């Protein structure tokens, strides 16, 4: 059940295009530090660990903890070592580590296959691997290769801010709980949604989003930087990026849409939105914009949808926006179409900034 180094390596190589590690969950005793906290050992940080934590963090890979220890004692020790701030949602208690990883997964809203778990104890790795097959369980012995394996293809502005963005989300979430009413909460955020034609500067982030986004991704098509570069030059394609800003700050570039334009018909090949903005009610805005734009140009609009085990939400988005099934795609997907009979209004609580 446990993945060996070479398996992991070949796994990562094989799925290089799709497999992205977004979070590394660390054990503490004999992993982050040498020695066992509970046994009052003289604890020493593992050599090179701070570099690894900081580097992962700067790449936008979240560090977290699954450790069986007393919470307060362990946190105090992390503070003493000066590394407390690098960990989000640390799970330090006596519960099963598979449960800890489940909690972290839910907090971050990512897939199990985007999580790596590093522990010196074979028992703990097996327990996690048994419950969560897709988690990449690694022995601490492979720590030297971690950076090489997990390095993202691109490091964008969004990457280095990712931990802060999760922390901002936490504040938003607390406020949401306090306000209790979703509509009022959304109004209170003072959301600005900005849609722009993608420029060369956006392409790394666009490629990153096509690789990282699973749930709110209509087709899962991924394009290389070079392909994207050709697309923004092409007169027959439109590539849009969307950014979301609220009173707490920017969520960064969080949405991408790519349209193939034929004289009568526009076809949406790509529509995706970062899962972080899922509950902001902005998912449909980019789609609405493209519907209205196609309508203005006197075209009909089609959209491709390729189902996966996670992206039903995008199908619902299309169907509830009034799209109907119009045929099958050769790749197993569905072609949807919309008559664009009328202009679609935008949600009132979102301030829109649209291209000229």
């Amino acid at each position, binding site marked *: 059940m446990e993945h060996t180094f070479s398996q992991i390596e070949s796994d990562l190589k094989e799925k290089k295009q799709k497999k992205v590690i977004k979070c590394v969950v660390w054990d503490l005793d004999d992993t982050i530090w040498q020695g066992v906290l509970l046994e009052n050992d003289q604890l020493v940080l593992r050599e090179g660990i701070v570099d690894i934590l900081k580097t992962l963090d700067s790449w936008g890979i979240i560090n977290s903890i699954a450790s069986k220890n007393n919470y307060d004692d362990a946190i105090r020790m992390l503070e003493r070592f000066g590394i407390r701030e690098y960990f989000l949602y640390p799970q330090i208690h006596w519960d099963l580590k598979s449960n800890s990883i489940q909690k972290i997964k839910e907090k971050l809203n990512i897939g199990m296959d985007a999580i790596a778990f590093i522990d010196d104890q074979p028992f703990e790795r097996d327990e996690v691997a048994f419950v969560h097959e897709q988690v990449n369980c690694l022995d601490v012995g492979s720590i030297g290769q971690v950076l090489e394996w997990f390095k993202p293809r691109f490091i964008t502005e969004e990457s280095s801010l990712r931990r802060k963005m999760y922390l901002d989300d936490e504040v938003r979430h607390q406020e949401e709980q306090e306000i209790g009413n979703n509509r009022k909460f959304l109004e209170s955020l003072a959301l600005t949604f900005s849609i722009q034609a993608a420029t060369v500067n956006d392409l790394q982030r666009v490629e990153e989003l096509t690789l990282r986004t699973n749930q709110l991704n209509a087709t899962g098509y991924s394009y290389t930087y070079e392909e994207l570069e050709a697309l923004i030059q092409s007169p027959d394609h439109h590539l849009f990026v969307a950014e979301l800003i609220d009173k707490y700050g920017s969520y960064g570039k969080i949405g991408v849409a790519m349209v193939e334009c034929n004289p009568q018909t526009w076809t949406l090949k790509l529509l995706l939105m970062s899962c972080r903005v899922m509950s902001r009610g902005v998912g449909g805005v980019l789609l609405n914009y493209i519907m209205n734009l196609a309508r203005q140009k006197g075209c009909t609009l089609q959209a491709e949808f390729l189902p996966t085990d996670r992206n039903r939400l995008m199908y619902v988005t299309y169907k*509830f926006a009034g799209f109907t099934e119009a045929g099958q795609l050769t790749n197993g997907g569905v072609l949807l179409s919309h008559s664009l009979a009328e202009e679609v209004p935008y949600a009132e609580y979102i301030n829109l900034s649209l291209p000229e």
Partner: protein
Amino acid sequence: MEVTTQPDTKVIIKEFLQKRIGQDISFTDEEDIFKLGLVNSLFALELVVFLETTFKISIENEDLNLENFSTVNNLGAFILKKKDR
């Protein structure tokens, strides 16, 4: 088990919607809930999953259209139709 009648179905649906949309926002059984400002696909999917688990039905792709989901009345009728099958 008791047979669920339409009024009960509608009460359960209304309760769920009221909780999600906000207790202080009032709407009738005929009113389009997606025009209340929650035209949000996440909310839509939540609603789909809620209906599937609460009423033990399976909502297929062809059921996913706005008419079925737009008002409490339509939702009630849709659930009845699904349970009949």
